[in-house]
């Protein structure tokens, strides 16, 4: 680890100063969407991974198919920091539309790589940025006759040039090509050729730069996958058989991945028949309705959506809560409200999900921090939904869902069985066991249910969204209604011990201040804690992994004078939940909020917390 960027250098605007960093820098590609840049950019990230150096790429893309600006930001970090750092060390500026904005993002002493086919006036550059011009269009035009090839191989060519500049092993890229174009030798050869053209040009014409990739061994057995694929696979392993969904960014790829994995792993080898049913429904209301119907009838079912879908599903969510039907919803959050920012990330559906639907409702929420937990929580949500007979939400977001992330490998135990919850069997009914669909017989608030068709004379009941007595008979009697609502609260208490427990880190109570965070904020938070620590600012941290909050969350808050709640929304939605559920003095919970649609950075968190601390204690320490 040889990252050197003293704060002083960063403030100098001296052309001679240049950023020198090995295995610790940020490269950003500015492209036009639909130009085929995505696969070249992904190859760039993967080739560095193959050299044993952790990377975390992020797509910043428009809600559009062709012609609008798109970016791919790759953080290279031997230390394994996977959050966004903030700032850009090398900008690969391939989009004239965004040139000016892209230029300003570069750190002083950083680098600008661009297509120099058309000369640009000096005013288009910065004095404190090193410029690397390569006539990509000219080279492509003279090499390829076909227009599409000219476009596509431009991307591969800059990949070749960057591999020379940064010292990325070309063999690793070639191996990746070989894996990608297995059986398509023609494509393989043409890609290798374009790569070589790029490399040759860079070797002959471009000056060396201060950013380098050096082979390391810090990737280990980690896998590189996005959260939507991971959650889909979690649903396959977790035994989901019915998926009903409606296309919506950023969740569509989850349903599509579920389909793909089902086709591969869920076809009965003997009969060729499918052990799954996937419906692309007419809308989100129908999606959740199908999930409710399937859950009622004993199949594990889920839907996947984003904020607007949650709004539409609300009525059914209330029905599933009140009639006690297992439902799993995966909400890949995006920028709201309304259509909001469909291709940007946020954690802004927390309250909408926690209290979805009219009347008194509360719902179980799980907050995965990365694809590994997306897999685990998706499978666990299906268990929890059956166990608790209620809707369970997995709240991921676009940052986790649609970006490939280095994450711990998926884990499964073949001895693991599904928890189907309290289902009364035909034998139990035959033996005369008392069946009260909404009766609390075990003292945990969870009643027994029967699947339709179980027994000829016993166990049938009428499911409804209206109030009922413990034997599922329609009733508007006050005591019946109150019994039921109180039982649902008891069930809520039971849920606290069943959901994933929070992760605590820190000083076992010595620190005066604490931090609470959740979901995709996690990697940036970990790094921010280290940044603050360098400044002798020590904080205890608690990562909330589920709602309802286990008691330990309340204890954590009470143990600290002040708790920062870091979130990616405007209104501090988790903070509101904490205040509401624990009855805590709001003054003790300080909101640290980042909600411009980009993933939160370590610098932002460290800066914001550091500033609060400075403001509170003027003689105190200063964060970076």
């Amino acid at each position, binding site marked *: 680890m040889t990252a050197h960027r003293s704060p002083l250098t960063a403030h100098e605007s001296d052309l001679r100063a240049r950023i020198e960093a090995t295995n610790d820098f940020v490269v950003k590609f500015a492209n036009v969407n639909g130009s085929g840049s995505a696969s070249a950019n992904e190859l760039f990230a993967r080739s560095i991974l193959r050299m044993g150096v952790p990377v975390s790429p992020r797509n910043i893309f428009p809600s559009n198919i062709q012609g609008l600006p798109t970016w791919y930001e790759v953080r290279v970090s031997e230390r394994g920091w996977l959050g966004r750092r903030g700032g850009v060390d090398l900008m690969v500026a391939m989009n004239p539309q965004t040139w000016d904005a892209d230029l300003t993002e570069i750190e002083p002493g950083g680098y600008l790589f661009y297509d120099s086919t058309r000369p640009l006036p000096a005013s288009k550059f910065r004095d404190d940025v090193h410029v690397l011009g390569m006539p990509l269009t000219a080279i492509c035009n003279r090499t390829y006759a076909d227009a599409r090839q000219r476009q596509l191989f431009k991307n591969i060519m800059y990949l070749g040039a960057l591999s020379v500049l940064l010292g990325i092993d070309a063999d690793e890229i070639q191996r990746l090509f070989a894996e990608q174009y297995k059986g398509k030798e023609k494509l393989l050869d043409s890609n290798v050729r374009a790569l070589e053209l790029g490399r040759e040009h860079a070797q002959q014409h471009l000056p060396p730069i201060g950013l380098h990739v050096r082979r390391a061994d810090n990737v280990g057995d980690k896998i590189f996958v996005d959260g939507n694929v991971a959650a889909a696979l979690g649903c396959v392993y977790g035994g989901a*058989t019915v998926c009903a969904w409606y296309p919506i960014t950023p969740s569509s790829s989850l349903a599509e991945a579920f389909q793909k994995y089902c086709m591969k792993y869920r076809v009965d080898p003997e009969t060729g028949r499918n052990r799954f049913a996937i419906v692309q429904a007419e809308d989100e209301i129908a999606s959740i*309705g199908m999930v409710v119907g*399937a859950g*009622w*009838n004993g199949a594990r079912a889920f839907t996947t959506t984003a904020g607007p879908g949650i709004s539409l599903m609300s009525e059914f969510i209330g029905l599933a809560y009140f009639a006690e039907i297992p439902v799993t919803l995966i909400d890949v959050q995006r920028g709201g409200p309304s259509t909001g920012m469909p291709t940007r990330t946020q954690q802004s559906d927390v309250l909408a999900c926690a209290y979805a639907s009219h009347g008194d409702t509360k719902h179980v929420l799980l907050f995965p921090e990365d694809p590994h937990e997306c897999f685990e929580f998706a499978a666990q949500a299906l268990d929890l939904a059956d166990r608790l007979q209620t809707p369970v939400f997995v709240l991921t977001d676009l940052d986790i869902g649609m970006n490939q992330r280095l994450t711990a490998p998926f884990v*499964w135990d073949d001895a693991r069985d599904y928890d189907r919850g309290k289902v009364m069997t035909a034998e139990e009914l035959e033996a005369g066991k008392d069946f009260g669909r909404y009766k609390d017989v075990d003292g945990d608030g969870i009643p027994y249910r029967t699947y339709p068709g179980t027994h000829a004379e016993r166990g*049938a009941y*009428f499911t409804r969204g209206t109030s009922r007595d413990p034997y599922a008979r329609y009733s508007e009697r006050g005591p019946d209604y109150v019994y039921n609502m109180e039982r649902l609260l008891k069930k809520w208490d039971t849920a606290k011990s069943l959901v994933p427990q929070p992760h605590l880190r820190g000083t076992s109570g010595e620190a005066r201040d604490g931090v609470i965070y959740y979901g995709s904020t996690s990697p940036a938070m970990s790094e921010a804690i280290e940044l603050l620590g360098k400044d002798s600012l020590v904080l205890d941290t608690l990562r909330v992994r589920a709602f309802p909050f286990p008691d330990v969350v309340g204890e954590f808050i009470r143990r600290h004078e002040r708790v920062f709640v870091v979130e990616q929304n405007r209104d501090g939605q988790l903070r509101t939940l904490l205040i509401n559920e624990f009855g805590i003095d709001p003054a003790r919970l300080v909101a640290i909020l980042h909600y411009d649609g980009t993933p939160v950075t370590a610098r932002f968190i460290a800066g914001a917390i550091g500033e609060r601390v400075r403001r509170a204690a003027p003689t105190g320490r200063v964060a970076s």
Partner: protein
Amino acid sequence: MTYITKPKLHHPTLACNAIGFTRRDYEGKISTLCAGCGHDSISAAIIQACWELDIEPHRVAKLSGIGCSSKTPDYFLGQSHGFNTVHGRMPSVLTGANLANRDLLYLGVSGDGDSASIGIGQFVHAIRRGVNMVYVVENNGVYGLTKGQFSATADQGSKSKKGVVNTDSPLDLVGLAMQLGATYVARGFSGDKTQLVPLIKGAIAHKGAAFIDVISPCVAFNNHAGSTKSYEYVREHNEAVNRLDFIDVRAEITVDYAEGEIVDVTQHDGSIVRLRKLSADFNAHDRVGAMNYVHARQAKGEVVTGLLYVDPDAHDLHEHFNTTEVPINRLGVKELSPGIAALEKINAGLR
């Protein structure tokens, strides 16, 4: 929905069907609908049809939305699981339930408000998908439970009880169902049980999306002069295109008909729907012809009833999805989890 417990006394001479059940065994709670409500006659027809078909009550799942009609599943098949869902959304819940367990009989009961207004989208798409179900709309042209507002099936120019004239065009559910690919489409009248019971039986035996529009007068809010959904109006304007006899697989065909008068339709399970033609120029196998016929008669103020269209070789959603014969709600971790070995391969492929 009632507090009154129904006595469980059985008359010793009540006839039993082949599986030993009396008609009483197919009943539910006492109806709380208005005396004379058409919906109660439909419940009685469903009871009769299930009893005659020797269906085990617990093998039926009855689902509904919200409204007077949607309350009725509580009044029949007390030994079946029932689900009174949310307004207009019964079709999606039924679809999901059907996917979970293909072995049950799915009976969806809805009204014209529930299906033609708030739920028209779900009605349309459940039909399109070919969900194997019996979908009954108890159609009275009016919102009963909220006291008399027009529904989307109310005819243009018809008058409400308060004297308001409906200016909107009516939505024609049978026409829609035929256009959308329903493979069994019928229209009945709650006042004609002899016609309705075989229509329901044929629908139950049908494998695919079966839809029955039953004109079912609302005695409280839509049975007055000027209404086109009143008993009197429908009796006067009912044009039955055929008479249906439903012949069970096991039953012997004994009745003789004059040649040319009857058409036998053998359904998927071997049962036969025998149509006695009442209209010489109507053919229940001709979807487009049937749509034209119904619409032409409708334009003249007639209400065409009978079996309007049937495709005996229909396919259902499970066939489209190629799902296992074993209901998927019975599959366990052994059949569903690909296992550690596969996961290790997946992990390796992501490095």
